[in-house]
């Protein structure tokens, strides 16, 4: 039986293996924090972690996910207290809020890879995430703040 682990929970996969992970999350197991924005890996609203890497779940087929570990926004932290989530709150980043699960998931991988990212690092990691409300400068500020929190061990 094909299984995947999502947010530390085991799921049996009994769906079309060509289906993107996004729809498994949203339609089949009710994890709707991961958003549909474009379906062609252009906007980043659907970013999740696959074995620790940021992937666009709208183009990541189930056959690639089987046997692997997935983390979605719902599983990023137990109490919504990942440094990025705390910084997002503190900087008051969102407007409509739709893209931010994807933004935070992209930023989480960046922070793990580069605990003290430069603006250029942020550009590189976050350019795949669109925010029509235009909150980019706040996202940048929140990432720097989360980095500082991580460094000071204040979480």
């Amino acid at each position, binding site marked *: 039986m094909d299984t995947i682990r999502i947010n530390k929970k085991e799921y049996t996969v009994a769906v*079309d293996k060509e*289906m*993107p992970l996004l*729809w498994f999350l*949203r*339609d*089949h197991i*009710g*994890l*709707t*924090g*991961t*958003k*549909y*924005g*474009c*379906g*062609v890996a*252009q*906007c980043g*609203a659907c970013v999740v972690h696959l074995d620790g890497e940021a992937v666009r779940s709208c183009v990541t087929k189930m056959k690639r996910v089987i046997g692997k570990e997935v983390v*979605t*926004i*719902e599983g*990023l932290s137990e109490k*919504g207290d990942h440094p990025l*989530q705390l910084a*997002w*709150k503190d900087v*008051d*980043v*969102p*407007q*409509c*809020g*739709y*893209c*931010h*699960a994807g933004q*935070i998931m992209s930023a989480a991988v960046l922070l793990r890879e580069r605990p003290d990212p430069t*603006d250029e690092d*942020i*550009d*590189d990691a*976050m*350019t*795949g*995430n*669109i*925010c*029509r*409300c*235009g*909150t*980019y*400068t*706040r*996202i*940048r500020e929140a990432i720097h703040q989360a980095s500082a929190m991580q460094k000071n061990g204040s979480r």
Partner: protein
Amino acid sequence: MNADKITLDRRSFLKAALLAGGGMMLQFNWPEVMAMDLENNAAEDAVALNSYIKIHLDGRVTLFNPNPEFGQNVKTSLPMILAEELDVDWEQVEVEQADFFPERFERQFTGGSQAIRRAWPILRKAGATARQMLILAAAQQWAVPVAEISTSEGVLHHQKSNRKLRYGEVASAAASIAVPQEVKLKDVADFKIIGSSKRNVEMDNIITGKPLFTSDYKKEGMLIAMIIHPQAFGQEITAITDTAVRQMPGIKDVFVIETLPKDYKKNSFDVMSFEKLAVIVGNSTWEVMQAKKKLVLELHANKGGPRAGLLESTAGHHAEMEQQAKLPGQVKRRDGDPETAFKNASRIIERTYTAPFLVHNTMEPVSCFADVTADAAELYAPIQAPEFITRTLSARLGLPKEKIKINLARMGGGFGLRAYGHHLVEAAVISQKIKAPVKLIYTREDEATYGIYRPTYSATFRAALDENNQLTGFHAKVGGIPESPLHENRFPAGAIDNYLAESWSVGSAITIGAFRAPGSNFIAGAEQSFLDELALEMKKDPIDFRLELLKRAKERPVGDKNDYDADRYAGVIRLLRDKAQLAKKPVGTGRGVAAYYCHNTYAAALVDIGVKNNEPYVRQAIAAMDCGIVVNKDAAVNMAEGAMVDGIGNALYGEQFFIDGIPQKNNFNSYRMIRMNEAPEHLEVYFVDNEENPTGMGEPLFPPMFGAVANALYRQTGKRYYHQPYLKQYLAENKPATGKRA
């Protein structure tokens, strides 16, 4: 402003009641939402009261908010106003989001940057009245004079006897006190909550991915539906070939729906781009998406409507716009004798500006849940204007209005698009047909090609200069397909003796709708580019030139219909100039400014534009705004920052175009949106400090950004930018040596 002088209309009265289980309810009329006279048990009232605040026994305060939320943060800012006057800790105030009740509300609308402006007087009055009633109740209980009681953060205090009561403890008693006719509002100087910064109340749900949006909604037995519309505007579906589709896994049904009732007289928000749509219903989104690819539509050209039988292309639109610029338009305003001014001019400066159709690109594509039974309909939908679509739904479904319930979901962006409720009608019609609850989902491609776009526009400005290089006449000929963006009574009207404003429009099968500051979002950039160029032609500093014109408009205004306050307009420009002097221009950038007034708010913007990866890049942007009293400071700054980024992005990249009626950009791989690496490194937002009643924030800063970007590009490149999106011209004139873009 004297706070006591806020006037409320006849309908805005207040009424107190005891809450079931204890506590006080103060009912009042939300000004944005006029109640209908339908509540049978309110016989003594001329109208029913449509909103309320509740003060619970434990001190919590509930505010009932009828305005839909789509990121403009009213869900946070409105309770701040109430908390201020009621004098409670704002964190004790909770917002109850009103669903749409057609039997209670005549008008429930988010748009036009009006939420705060309209709610301001009534929320202050309601808060102050409730506070006064609590004081009266405490005075009775303690048997002390009212004047000896003070309040602070939800606590009543009698200093002489050092007694205290929490609001909740006297709320039940206060409910039976006669509502005072006159209450004193706080002095602006004493505001503690208004003008501070309060975090978005939905923050925790947003950052942890809780279901908030329509697309997240689910109900037992719910099916998924998607639509397929004709490829081209001006086409209609005649038949579908669905044999292959019906055999695909998970597919329940395939059919064609009609979006409007026969002979239905549309209201202005009934924009249905296509009268017939093909529909596929299935078990899951993915299955329906797959089936969509296999469905074959048979189409023919529309026999009626604008341009019947013809399919439009952008090249054709351009030719039409050029032709219209040469023909006489409809005269909307004439001051003095513009013809003579131009005849006698030593020099005439004439420039034409254009902009393309734009797609809203809200991050959440269309989504709507509907469950329609034989005698009722329940919807869950992102909609800015539920009132308008209820009439349509009622007619189309054959159900009385009061049997239609629309739950208002948080919207994943609106920008005007969600004022149009075609998706509600579609979802409801589908649910009615298949007799099951259904969630309608558009793909990004469906939405980007469906229409309801920002129109394409053109403006030709002419200025007459005399032998002393003085401005003697001004002529604007402005139009669009299919709608004109002219605002004939806006600046510089009123500042020039001889002024002529003409308007034109040409019909189209391509549907349009409101888009963040409709009309203004083009005309501001065009006019502000022209004034900038004109100033230099007249050998004047562009800011001084605008201030001179505003001084003239203030001291000796031409005409009496000018719809701006020249003092406040000049005020934001001066504030921007002061801040600009302090902000160092980054090396290698050009600096441009622009200002505009719309939606009751004055805005001025500056951008410093340089080059990055062989493309223009705004390094820094600064805004000055006069929106009166700022309610939620940081939320206002956030919205202003967003308007700057959105404006820069649309000015440089935004464009939809057509070949044979077919929109050519259907997703973010072809439709370019501003991204993180293109967002300014630095943004600053300043507000004019005054005591004017608050006005809108969502739209007013967006329009001048287009002018600021064009003017900065001129300083940076030496070339004027007349046609949006500006990136096209830039790339044509600045071929990169390597030809590579990062």
